């Protein structure tokens, strides 16, 4: 198999604006059009990944050029875009470029937020669907599994997913650093801004137990509380309610400060100094900055959180560079495997392995004999040679047999697996 037979056609947040990506999304309840893709000219194997930020078709083709063009026509068929436009918004990678690209996608090096873990799950799901529909074969099976293990390796060997790089995740991370486990804790939303909602959602995903919504307009508080299955309160109840919450997210539209240091101080006494984490995402600010001076109270405003995110992003970029090195290394290894998927290198590898076994077994047998004559040595060598030659005859014929091109890679994969030709641990004939 030649590496150039692998191709990836796709578009993502870097190449296409959101309006275009929306038109392409094959997500939701619609089944992926794998059958149609398989019927495209030259297509032997295929898999399709579709998320809100990217659509990718990964395929193996006998005629990469034709398949690539057909895939593009297929993908943009209903979009109303001209051929030039569809070329402008998409990318087509083949060979090593395609391998490198998929490894980067799986490891989340190509994502909008580098290091976010969701993409790997989506890729695994895409593979599951494709293999269930029998659209993957020896090459894609190996290729996609390899992309999962590369992603895992990068996650283990670098700190790429180590720190939060969005405001709401930074808030969650800080909350955990201050309060430990978030299970059973209570969060209060003061005001009802969109960002506060988002932050509250993230906190709920982390196990926050209860949400209290406090708002100037009580009706709005009730509406929002309903969404989180929480309770609502009026602004006059703010201080009383504050005694029971662990995290406060404030985002009112008020022009002045809503909560002052001297108001929080007695609340802390009532709370027996239980720690309180305050997040002020309103502009202008809602919470008196001096509140942070109180013991066991931690106040972060939007600039503080942005600062945390910037530090984390810089840290991730450094880690991403390490990830790229791993991708380069793994791409090279995968290329070697692909090269081995040609018939001649596989036969050579098979003979080499047999030769190693022959050598070691002959040496072992001769070592056990007392002073064998040159004739005996020659006979034993011949015997070993003859057994190996006859044993390999049929597998080699099987490899060379005429048949469909798509069966060729299956046959190669089978023989390579049967004789463990890709397993470096079994190079040593003693281990067989």
């Amino acid at each position, binding site marked *: 198999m030649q590496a150039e037979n692998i191709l990836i056609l796709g578009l993502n947040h870097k190449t296409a604006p959101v309006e275009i990506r929306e038109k392409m999304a094959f997500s939701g309840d619609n089944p992926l059009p794998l059958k149609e893709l398989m019927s495209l000219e030259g297509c032997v194997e295929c898999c399709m990944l579709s998320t809100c930020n990217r659509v990718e078709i990964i395929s193996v083709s006998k005629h990469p050029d034709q398949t690539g063009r057909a895939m593009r026509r297929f993908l943009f068929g209903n979009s109303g875009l001209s051929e030039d436009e569809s070329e402008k918004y998409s990318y087509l990678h083949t060979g090593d470029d395609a391998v490198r690209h998929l490894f980067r996608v799986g490891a989340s090096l190509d994502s909008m937020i580098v290091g976010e873990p969701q993409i790997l799950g989506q890729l695994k799901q895409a593979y599951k669907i494709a293999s269930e529909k029998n659209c993957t074969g020896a090459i894609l099976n190996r290729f996609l599994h390899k992309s999962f293990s590369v992603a895992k390796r990068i996650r283990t060997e670098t700190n790429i997913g*180590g720190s939060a790089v969005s405001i709401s995740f930074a808030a969650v991370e800080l909350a955990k*650093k201050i309060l430990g486990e978030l299970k059973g804790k209570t969060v209060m939303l003061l005001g009802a801004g969109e960002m506060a909602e988002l932050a509250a959602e993230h906190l709920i995903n982390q196990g926050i137990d209860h949400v209290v919504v406090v708002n100037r307009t009580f009706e709005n508080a009730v509406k929002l509380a309903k969404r989180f299955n929480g309770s609502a309160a009026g602004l006059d109840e703010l201080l009383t309610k504050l005694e029971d919450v662990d995290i406060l997210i404030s985002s009112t539209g008020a022009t002045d400060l809503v909560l002052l240091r001297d108001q929080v101080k007695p609340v802390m*006494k009532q709370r027996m*100094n239980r720690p309180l984490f305050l997040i002020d995402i309103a502009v202008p600010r809602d919470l008196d900055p001096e509140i*942070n001076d109180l013991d066991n109270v931690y106040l972060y405003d939007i600039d*503080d959180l942005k600062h945390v995110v910037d530090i984390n992003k810089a840290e991730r970029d450094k880690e991403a560079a390490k990830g790229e090195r791993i991708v380069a290394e793994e791409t090279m290894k995968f290329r070697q495997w692909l090269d081995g998927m040609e018939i001649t290198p596989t036969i050579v590898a098979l003979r080499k392995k047999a030769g190693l076994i022959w050598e070691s077994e002959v040496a072992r047998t001769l070592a056990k004999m007392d002073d064998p004559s040159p004739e005996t040595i020659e006979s034993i060598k011949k015997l070993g040679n003859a057994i190996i030659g006859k044993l390999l005859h049929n597998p080699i014929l099987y490899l060379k047999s005429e048949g469909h091109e798509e069966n060729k890679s299956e046959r190669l994969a089978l023989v390579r697996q049967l004789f463990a030709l890709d397993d470096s641990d079994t190079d040593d004939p003693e281990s067989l």
Partner: protein
Amino acid sequence: MTLLFQLTFLIYLFTTATYTVFFFNQNERLRLLARYSMIVAGIAHLGYTIGRYIISGHTPITSNHEAVSFFALAVTWGYLSYRWRYKVKNFGVFVSPVITALMLVAALSSQQFSELPPALQSLWLPVHASIAILANGFLALAFSGGIMYLLQEREIKNKRFGLFYSRLPSLEALDNLNRYSLATGFPLLTLGIITGSIWAKQAWGSYWQWDPKETWSLITWFLYAAILHLRFTAGWRRRRAAIMAIIGFLAALFTLWGVNFLIVGGLHSYAS
């Protein structure tokens, strides 16, 4: 015996060095190496203490060398017992230097075997002294946790994340460590004072004599009692609890050594 002590000391030094390097480069293998090395040091140290017991024929807590070495042993096993039940990120990094510092003091003290003075020839010696020192071991854990708390809290409060933020556990976990260490250390400290008092009655005919060591142990006890009381009634938790754990431990150290060095005389002066 000296050789075994030196070997133990070296393993502790190695543990501390490994933990320190791990703290900076965060290589997981180093952390594992440091942990195993700490266990090996703890076992060697136990062997040394038992060996000394067999040779001298009495519990080896009577000279400064023995008391401090036993103290280090208590911190080590206190830490290992805690680590076995709970996980506090990088706790070993902060505990191992405390142990090594104690071992250094023990190494610099005279390691000679001494005759047991008549006043100490009692069954109460192993009971009283080992409980008292074990209590100090747990108070040392609270001290290490307190330092970790203050370092972590400073970065979170000032919003300047440096070396410690990602490397230290949550403030909650550190506060729990403080609570656990005091909840174990304080009853032991109380028991140490009670057994000492009973022993004093047997040896000298009176439960309490206001000997400097007794006075200071009472001051330390009151300090820790206040810490616990304030923790549960006035909400002195977290930062204040961490500061108090540090102050309390310094008082405990003063009771153990300071009294002997600074205040001459007293009934406990044999241990200097």
